[in-house]
């Protein structure tokens, strides 16, 4: 039986990091993830963890130091948000190409500009093709659980990819919720020891990392990354199975909420799923067969599995908390619809870009989305598949 606590999302992330007890944490303050390195440096100062905390002078150096540490043979972790991740961008790609299973806590926030410190997913979407595994978390509990599972996934020999656990800035990072923690010893046992095969600090086997890699080999190396991402799908489910045995909490690629008999459904990620569940409950009381698909694993993208889960619906709305500014639709929408198309699933699907820069999204607004879906279900027609939700002057 776990330990019942009340923690904010940032506290939950820092607690997970404390229990994981990594060798190196390198981080730089940025709202709303600042508290994570703050809490963590307290653990370091009080000798609660064995970690070397590297208080770097920028996020670029944070990721560089994590790469150096992980390549050296250590477990390295970091936390950041928005522009911090943008400044890391160059190193994000290098971390995954060097196959270093670094784990990051990403507290989602709008990428400038103009400057905004509140939640949207533009930071995570900006690195969606960088070769990192991306797990999304609806609640503080999920942010914690995903971090506890992270190293087992990232460090798996068939995977060896960095992983980021996303949660919504302020909405979950600064909200205190009930949470069930796992005992320290059980976390230690579940996460296990990191045993890299090749590492810089192995004097018996000096290695060189990060070559100039030209036409003759880069293609093959990229294909290996793609293969590892494919392999991660299986590993993510295996680790989730073990996690369920430990905690009773069940995780998959996504969560289906009242989807089985649903005619209309919303697809979204992170905390909005909570609002959507409340909306589904309200609509169900009115006899409307509404459902929800909450994506947990965004990279690797479970295209086939999602298409399968959506195939019996009459209309679907995909909610993107980041605009791709491409005159076609958000990233999640494009992935979902192309996944359906490739897997011969034909369901009328519409996109709503919402919650940009921390704009609040309410049950009433989501209710309107479901009502739109009812219309689409009746008419079978979609006038404009790329829409905004909660934009001033449009509703």
């Amino acid at each position: 039986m776990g330990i019942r606590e009340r923690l904010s999302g940032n506290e939950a992330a820092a607690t997970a990091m404390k229990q994981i007890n990594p060798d190196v944490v390198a981080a730089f303050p940025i709202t709303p993830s600042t508290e994570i390195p703050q809490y963590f440096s307290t653990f370091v100062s009080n000798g609660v963890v064995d970690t070397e905390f590297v208080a770097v002078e920028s996020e670029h150096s944070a990721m560089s130091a994590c790469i150096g540490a992980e390549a050296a043979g250590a477990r390295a972790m970091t936390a950041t948000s928005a522009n911090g991740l943008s400044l890391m961008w160059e190193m994000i790609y290098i971390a995954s190409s060097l196959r270093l299973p670094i784990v990051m806590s990403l507290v989602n926030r709008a990428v400038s500009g103009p400057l905004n410190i509140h939640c949207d997913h533009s930071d995570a979407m900006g690195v969606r093709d960088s070769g990192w595994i991306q797990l999304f978390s609806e609640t503080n509990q999920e942010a914690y659980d995903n971090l506890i599972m992270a190293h087992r996934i990232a460090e798996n020999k068939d995977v060896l990819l960095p992983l980021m656990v996303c949660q919504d800035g302020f909405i979950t990072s600064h909200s205190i919720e009930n949470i069930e923690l796992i005992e320290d010893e059980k976390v230690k046992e579940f996460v296990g020891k990191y045993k890299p095969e090749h590492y810089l600090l192995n004097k018996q086997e000096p290695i060189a990392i990060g070559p100039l890699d030209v036409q003759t080999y880069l293609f093959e190396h990229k294909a290996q990354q793609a293969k590892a991402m494919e392999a991660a799908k299986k590993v993510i489910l295996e680790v989730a199975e073990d996690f369920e045995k430990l905690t009773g909490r069940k995780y998959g690629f996504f969560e289906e909420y009242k989807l089985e008999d649903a005619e209309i459904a919303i697809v979204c990620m992170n905390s909005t799923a909570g609002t959507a569940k409340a909306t589904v409950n309200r609509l169900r009381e009115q006899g409307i067969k509404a459902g929800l698909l909450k994506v947990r694993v965004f990279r690797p993208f479970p295209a086939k599995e999602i298409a399968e889960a959506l195939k019996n619906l009459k209309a679907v709305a995909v909610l993107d908390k980041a605009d791709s500014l491409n005159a076609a639709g958000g990233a999640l929408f494009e992935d979902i619809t192309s996944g359906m198309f490739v897997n011969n699933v034909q369901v009328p699907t519409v996109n709503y870009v919402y919650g940009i820069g921390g704009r609040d999204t309410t049950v009433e607004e989501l209710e309107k989305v479901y009502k739109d879906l009812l219309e689409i279900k009746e008419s079978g027609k979609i006038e404009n598949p790329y829409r905004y939700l909660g934009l001033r002057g449009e509703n």
Partner: protein
Amino acid sequence: MAYNHKEIIANRPSRLTSGHRMCAGCGAPPVARMILRAVKPEDHVVVSNATGCMEVSTFLYPYTAWTDSYIHTAFENAAATLSGVEAAYKAMKATGKLPENEVTKFIAFGGDGGTYDIGLQSLSGAMERGHDLLYVCYDNGAYMNTGIQRSSATPKFADTTTSPAGTKIPGKMQSRKDLAKIMVGHHLPYVAQSIAYMNFKDLYEKAEKAIYTEGPTFLNVLAPCPRGWGYNTEDLMLINKLAVETCYWPLYEVVDGVYHITYKPAKKLPVEEFLRPQKRFKHMFKPGNEWMIEEFQKEVDNRWQELLDLEEMTNKNKEN
């Protein structure tokens, strides 16, 4: 420090092997070789290399010229990357994840572009945080790897591809940054400027001190580039000699803030001796451009005098 310098030069194996692709007459490989020779044979090294000539020429997949462990990640972050490696070493030593009796030293190599310019923040951060590592800048005075573009280490008037000597603007119009002094401003236990000259004795001894002084240390080593400077490849050592004998590149070390000039030329040569064999300064020797050589000489003289003053002042402070 009693040791047989000749024996080390002759017998200690090079930790950067031959067969790399650096140009003939390049100043960087002898610098890297000699610095690594100063590591005790029983000690392991992790080299962190900034993107640049040295990196692309020594580690082209699947070949490496480095016998120690080596990491390259990007252009501007050799120091930050190495600081992560060093932090890992500390943590793993403390928790018994590494053998107790093994010693690893940490050495970063970056060119002037990766050090004076794009990597300055990363370098400053790593030095301030006090990681136990040596950062070596091999300064060839321009972005040579991308084709000789000016950097903040490029000397005034030099002809580069982004400060071309034209009919209106005669080369680079700004003086070069003094990086060693910026490093001294970080209050490091050891900062030195050196070059491959006089059987590499100065370089070897400074490298050994820098590697085995606890804490962050910095070496700035002039490393001429035949392509960018326009000298004959066989003249590398002559160029090094002239850089020192004209006081263009003074050899000194700063130990805990106290300056010590390690070589004072008996007769300081005029700086045009250093400038003349290099094509990048060719326009300075055209009739009517004498003012450029004069101005260059004045800058060298001022900087040399400033160094003499710093030596006197910091040693006097030490006595008090």
